């Protein structure tokens, strides 16, 4: 267990009556890239700042490579931190920004010089050493912030929405560079973002947070394919929900009776009890439309009400005959279905997921 680079155990932060972070636990293995993903106010940044030591937790424990750092001041934690707004010291040149921590560690002049050169070249900033932060673009400033953190070879790199102040095109470029750099240096990274694309594309594992709590911790593929809660299913990607009650339970699959009375079969991974309220969900790209009638299991019927063409993707909105709407995404299409046309949908049992229909405070 103490092999973990970071271990957060039951971390809590209370602000008056509000629990900003409520019993959050997760770990980051050495060399791993873990993201904290969630909407604004979900407690992800507060969690990261507690790990960095900028905020004192109200409870719980934080360990870095087995060492309890819960109440250590930030300067004694040996963690790199990259801020959303870069937080470069405006009165110092790029080189001075990078050198600051090294000087505090009383490194030799030649060591510092080499280290500045190395970390600037790694972040693609060679030749910018003498510039002042205000003479750099946003993307370059964030590279300096990264170089500043990397120069100290921290045990873990913490990043707080480092790309969200950049414009979209640059964000995508920087995202790839960052991931490539992290993988090459095998830098243990904890990354906070509200951008699911970033989290899914960069991370080994993602911690999904909502209202101060952890909703699910899983690899990106697992999150998308097997969301544990409605929140995760809704937050990560687009999904179709069908409300129902479990009527049949068999090993490996269940029958879910929809409000219309129709029973859908769905493959399950965790057992659900008979009679429990559930949501069956299916991703839009799994919803295939047929203009010819189909018979059999799990067939739903409806009419196309809207078709949106995006080039690579064609999106249909289908109103089911029994009420409710489904969204469908087609990637390899060879024809359009006109709005108003009758369609049949076969929701394959292995494409349906069943999630307990939890009702929580505030929903």
């Amino acid at each position, binding site marked *: 267990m103490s092999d973990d680079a970071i271990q957060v155990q039951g971390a809590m932060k209370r602000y008056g009556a509000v629990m900003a972070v409520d019993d959050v636990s997760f770990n980051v293995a050495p060399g791993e890239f873990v993201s904290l993903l969630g909407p604004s106010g979900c407690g992800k940044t507060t969690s990261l700042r507690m790990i*960095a030591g*900028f905020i004192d937790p109200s409870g719980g424990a934080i360990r870095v490579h087995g060492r309890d750092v819960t109440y250590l001041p*930030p*300067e004694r934690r040996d963690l790199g931190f990259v*801020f959303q707004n870069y937080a470069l010291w405006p*009165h110092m040149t790029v080189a001075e920004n990078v050198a*600051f921590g090294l000087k505090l560690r009383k490194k030799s002049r030649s060591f510092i010089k080499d280290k500045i050169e190395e970390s600037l070249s790694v972040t693609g900033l060679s030749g910018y050493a003498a510039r002042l932060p205000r003479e750099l673009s946003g993307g370059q400033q964030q590279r300096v912030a990264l170089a500043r953190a990397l120069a*100290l070879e921290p045990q873990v790199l913490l990043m707080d929405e480092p790309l969200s102040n950049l414009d979209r095109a640059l964000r995508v470029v920087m995202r790839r560079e960052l991931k490539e750099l992290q993988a090459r240096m095998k830098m243990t990274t904890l990354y906070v973002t509200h951008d699911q694309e970033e989290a899914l594309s960069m991370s080994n594992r993602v911690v999904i947070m909502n209202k101060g709590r952890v909703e699910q911790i899983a690899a990106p593929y697992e999150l998308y394919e097997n969301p544990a809660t409605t929140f995760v299913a809704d937050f990560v990607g687009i999904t179709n929900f069908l409300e129902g009650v479990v009527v049949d339970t068999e090993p490996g699959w269940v029958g879910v009776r929809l409000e219309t009375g129709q029973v859908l079969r769905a493959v399950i991974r965790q057992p659900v009890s008979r009679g429990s309220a559930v949501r069956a969900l299916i991703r839009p790209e799994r919803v295939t439309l047929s203009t010819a009638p189909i018979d059999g299991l799990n067939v739903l019927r409806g009419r196309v009400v809207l078709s949106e063409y995006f080039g690579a993707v064609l999106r249909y909105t289908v109103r089911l005959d029994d009420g409710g709407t489904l969204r469908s995404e087609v990637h390899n299409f060879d024809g359009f279905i006109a709005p108003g046309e009758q369609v049949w949908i076969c929701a394959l049992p292995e494409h349906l997921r069943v999630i307990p229909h939890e009702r929580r405070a505030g929903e």
Partner: protein
Amino acid sequence: MIRRLTPSLSPGLLAIFIFVALPMLWVVRTSFNDLAQGSFIVETFTLDNYTRFLGDPWYLVNTLWFTVRIAILSTAVSVICAYPVALYIARTTGVQRNILMALIMAPLLIGLVTLVYGWIVIFRGGGLLNSLMIALNVYDEPVRYMWDIKGVVILLVYIGMPYIVLSLMDSIERISPYLVEAARNVGASPWTAFWKIVFPLTMPGLYAGLVIVFSLNFAAFAVPLMIGDSNTQMIGLVIYREALLNNDLPFASALSVIMVSVNALILVGMAVLFGRLILNRLEAKR
């Protein structure tokens, strides 16, 4: 941009020219005039007023150099007193902040004469300050503050503080707390983070405050007049005496020209020094 601003600035520039530049030109001209029979100004061109100043150690040392020293001393003490206050107020909010700001601004609002009379109560032999110091066992015998340089410096410090606090607070509030966190993160103690990050970034505010307060102290007149004695010959007071008591306008003018020039020189020196130290880095190049 500058061209577009020019028309809207011109009435202001005109006012500055009429009410500041013209009188100063007149003062410069007068400083080269002569005084006949001790009271009548004679239009001429003589350097007598300047040679009289430069040739007399009393003016050079006891007035000009003395004024420079007092201005530097009281400005420095103002800064030392104002800095922690500004740091503290910058961290407060709401009612607490409003109360503290009102207290700091008070000397600017009361009016100098009322203020000085108030301080006389504090300064005099059996006054508040002496009673307090004796009660605290700092010294045994009452110390003379009134009609003494000590009282002058204390008052100049007090009057200078609000300017420095205000200009420092402006700088302090511009500093993102993330800059301090970033410093702590790379290994700086709170103290190191203050000296290496916060302090340098407050230099623009400190500089602005220094310029204002040094100039005010250098030209101090009312405080040495009301609190000082014959040994506290600050140059502003000497000019007043020459102009209004001795009726020697040409000499008073020469003293004024010297005062303004020396002040300007010191300010230019400060600008160069601060610019070299840090301001050039913080201000965008044009």
